[in-house]
């Protein structure tokens, strides 16, 4: 088994674990942070797939802008006393 394949398998496992935790995390705050980590791991996956264009876009839009939007929505949810914080 080559090192590159091992890295790909590890990265794929990290992607799956991160997305699972983002969906199952007890608090929304943690879920959003895990989702941002998921976006950054996706950037790595695009780099491995020899797609630097997508990696750039994913880092800026997928992880950066989506993360900012989600955190802003989370803040708004809290301020209105929604159930943003569970457990």
């Amino acid at each position, binding site marked *: 088994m080559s090192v*590159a*394949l091992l890295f*790909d*398998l590890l990265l*794929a496992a990290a*992607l*799956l674990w991160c*997305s*699972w935790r*983002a*969906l199952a995390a007890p608090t*929304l705050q943690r*879920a*959003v942070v895990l*989702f941002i980590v*998921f976006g950054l791991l*996706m950037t790595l*996956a*695009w780099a*491995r*797939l*020899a*797609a630097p*264009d*997508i990696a750039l*876009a*994913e880092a800026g*839009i*997928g992880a950066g*802008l*989506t993360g900012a*939007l*989600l955190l802003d*929505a*989370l803040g*708004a*949810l809290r301020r*209105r*006393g*929604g*159930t*943003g914080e569970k457990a």
Partner: protein
Amino acid sequence: MTSGLVFALAGVALFAMGAAGVLLLAELMRRVLAFNIMGSGAFLVLVGLAQRNDVPDPVPQAMVLTGIVVAVAATALALALARRYQALGGRDELAGDD
């Protein structure tokens, strides 16, 4: 086993996980996350499958680039709707959902 195939298979799993999340999770924000994970899975399948013999293919790459930008617009619209809904009804889950 090439990188393309590894990530295409990971994409299949991500898509299934995201789809289950959209159907099962009650919180609206959480559904938006699941929807995004589903999209990322579809993107990985699209590019990974086209590059399963490790030759970069610019056509699916360009399509995914378009898809990522559309996905963030859909996410923002979904979050705006969720926030409006929550502001009107004071809840972060849809009424009539089980």
